[in-house]
């Protein structure tokens, strides 16, 4: 069996007396698509922030390609091959689509090569026609894809997508799902996806991890996990969980 690309062990993140994450652990293989779901405040975004170095964990370890990355700076982790998109669009607002992507491509390339790479990514994600557009003028799906393109420009091995499909229609969501699948197949990129749309999660993910109050309450095949009594209880309350069981 191959070594996991990412291993998280007993991860804790505390904000003073509040435990945002407590004893979280999971593994991920290269090219896998792992979904993370959970009610609001479950610690999903905090987990992402801890993985990419934005939030320093209080305890536990994160191994990426066999190397401990817990406590490293985000730009170092991005260089190693893991980055994320943001829950609320965090594009550079006074830059064009091309400039946003080019900025990230500078991580591994000089300016001329970075521009070329950025154009290539925009073409693959069908954003070439709006390369010169200011990001302030983009539609929701275009913003989501531009965030994805910018993250792609860092040559990630694992890409963390934080509600990239929020506010999209079903058709737009299908488009983004197709893009993610294509990137996995063509480039072998693994994805960890936080999403509230169960339809998207079930059709996209190989495996599902459910967080509630900062702890993992279920993990496994998406179809089975969503029927787990603890998961139903976390989403719908005690009576629903008991009734289902």
């Amino acid at each position, binding site marked *: 069996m191959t070594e996991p690309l990412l291993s998280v062990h007993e991860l804790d993140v505390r904000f003073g007396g509040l435990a945002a994450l407590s004893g979280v652990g999971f593994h991920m293989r290269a090219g896998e698509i792992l979904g993370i779901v959970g009610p609001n405040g479950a610690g999903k975004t905090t987990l992402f922030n801890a993985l990419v170095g934005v939030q320093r964990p209080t305890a536990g370890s994160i191994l990426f390609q066999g190397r401990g990355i817990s406590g490293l*700076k985000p730009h170092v982790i991005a260089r190693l091959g893991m980055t994320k998109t943001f829950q609320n669009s965090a594009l*550079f607002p*006074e830059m064009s689509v091309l400039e946003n992507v080019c*900025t*990230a491509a*500078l991580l591994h390339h000089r300016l001329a090569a970075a521009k070329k790479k950025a154009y290539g990514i925009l073409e693959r994600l069908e954003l070439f026609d709006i390369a010169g557009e200011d990001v302030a003028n983009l539609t929701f799906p275009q913003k989501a894809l531009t965030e994805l393109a910018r*993250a792609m420009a860092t040559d990630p091995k694992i890409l963390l997508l934080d509600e990239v499909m929020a506010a999209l229609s079903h058709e737009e969501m299908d488009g983004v799902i197709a893009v993610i699948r294509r990137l996995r197949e063509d480039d072998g990129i693994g994805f960890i996806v936080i999403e509230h749309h169960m339809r998207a999660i079930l059709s996209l993910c190989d495996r599902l991890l459910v967080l509630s109050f900062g702890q993992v309450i279920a993990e496994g095949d998406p179809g089975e996990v969503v029927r787990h009594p603890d998961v139903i209880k976390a989403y719908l309350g005690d009576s629903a969980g008991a009734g289902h069981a």
Partner: protein
Amino acid sequence: MKTLLRRHGLALLCAALAICLPLCMEDSDYAMRIATMALIFAAASQCWNLSGGLANQISLGHAAFFGIGAYTSTLLYIHLEVSPWLGLVAGGMLAAVAAAMLSVILSRLKGHYYALATLAFAEVLRVVANSWSSVTGGPIGLTIPFKGDAPLAFQFSSPAGYYWISLGLLALCSLVFHRLASGASGYRLRAIRENEVAAEVSGIDTFRLKLRLNVLSGALMAMCGTVYAQFIYFFDPDSIFSLSGISVKVAMMSIIGGLGTLPGPILGAFFLVPLEELSTSFFSDTAGLAQCVFGIVLIAAILIQPRGLMAVWGLRHRFMKGART
């Protein structure tokens, strides 16, 4: 040629004006002194613009580096007879070390907290300079011994000498700004300015880039301090480490001219320095009136054009483009 004019039209116009100005004002020492002061402040404001305009590091303590430069070169000259030209370099190096240390210590602070911490740094230096009388001369200040026309001692009989040196300093500061604001570092700095966390996650070492900017900004600011001290011959802690007289003034010049743009600080300095002089000379009879008028004009300028005088240049371009189509 057309592209060159379109892209660098304003810079070329400023350069041509700067070179022609001394020819037009040959007979007026007063006008030359105002122009020289505007150049020194334009250079200092460009230094502030490096960190404040490019990386959103809004400092209210740049007077600290200005004062370090002035005190270093002057003390070396008075006590060891070291030429202020060497003092200029020494002051720059000392300020670079101070800026690096400050940048590391304040690396976790942002926005108002960063501004207040830098303000405190300059205030500490002001208090130290006032108290350490045996070295700094205390509140009495320092007077540079007059040597007449002695270029090696950084002294000139006519204001033109100071004018050309100040112009050279402004050119140096503007060149550093241009190098950093363009190319790959320009992309990275714009990213930091617009969203620092997103920039870091996109692989940009924000700490290192800001450290580099702050060191360059501090070192060049100290050089401006040396030139300023040599030009006015006398300074004291309250004037050289002044919050309103230096720190806020250089920030205002960048903001009024156009934050984060190369011509912004130059336009701002050449608007504010003569304005301050004019209001002082016209309203000197009533105490405080000159400052009131100066303040009202500043507020009006910001209200009318919040994006700075550079935006007026942009509007002119759009107007001309519209007229051609």
